[in-house]
């Protein structure tokens, strides 16, 4: 019976983990280096794209989602989807308010 359990375990070779680790370290270096270059509004975009890619490979390989069942994959996608709803609908409100209520400095003094 436990042999049956063993046969369903998907053991990733260690070199996959080393490759993911190396990629994460290189991307950390890239994101720090890019921060010192003035790209205007694109600085935040580049930083977030790199962070999303790093998070994706952690989820797929370190967290084994790539090799998990469709139920687990659906659960992970549902979590990300609900966070996008949280961010998108709230920012949809804040970023489209009348001029003077948002996007301008509010005097807190």
């Amino acid at each position, binding site marked *: 019976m436990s042999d049956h359990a063993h046969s369903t375990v998907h053991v990733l070779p260690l070199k996959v983990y080393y490759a993911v680790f190396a990629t994460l370290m290189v991307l950390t270096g890239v994101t720090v280096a890019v921060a010192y270059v003035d790209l205007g509004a694109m600085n935040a975009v580049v930083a977030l794209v790199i*962070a999303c890619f790093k998070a994706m490979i952690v989820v797929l390989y370190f967290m084994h989602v790539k090799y998990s069942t469709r139920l687990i994959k659906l659960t992970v996608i549902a979590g990300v989807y609900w966070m996008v709803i949280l961010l998108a609908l709230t920012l949809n409100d804040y970023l489209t308010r009348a001029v003077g209520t948002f996007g301008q400095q509010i005097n807190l003094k």
Partner: protein
Amino acid sequence: MTHAAQPHQPAHHPALAHHFDDLAQQQEAASLGMWVFLLTEILFFGGLFLVYTIYRAWYPEAFASSSHHLDIPLGTINTAVLIGSSLTMAMAVHAAQMNSRKGVMIFLVLTMILGSVFLGIKGVEYSHKFHEHLIPGPDFAYAEAEFFRPAQIFFSLYFVMTGLHALHMIVGLGLMIWMLVWAHKGVIGNGYYSPVEVVGLYWHFVDIVWIFLFPLLYLIGRHATGH
């Protein structure tokens, strides 16, 4: 029922709960349970990232200026340390899958050392902020007077977000002590590894939160002058 009990089979694995057919099904249920918890965590930290985004859009100059008071070298070292701890955690799970109790214990201890180094460096950073009067409240002082109030919003968010992240790491260290005891007792390491896998999922999630916190708090305002 395709999974009906088969009475001719030998006694089942000691770690197999009676309501599961086999360890693989039990493992799947455990991972699903942790993922459902992590979903609530995604929305919990998502709410904080949302608040941060709104205030950053509201006070871009003040947030850029405030972020210049964060220590990028220490933040970068901590990012590397935490990614390293995710690697050692993945290797602990790998050792558990290979039924190596010794490997599980070695890599869990390495992960705990790296996690503690992260918290230590975070403590050094907090102490710098304390001495620079950057803790929001009566002692807060800020050279650029026009940012006095919004800079306190930045540092409130900084301490809440990194503080909750650090709290999650402390919980993770506690979970790893638990796994060390189980590996030592032999509960882990005879075909049963889902507790280590599930603690690994939690630890990698905490790593992902930092992967977003580091650029958002430390990096994206760096090129701006803050004026």
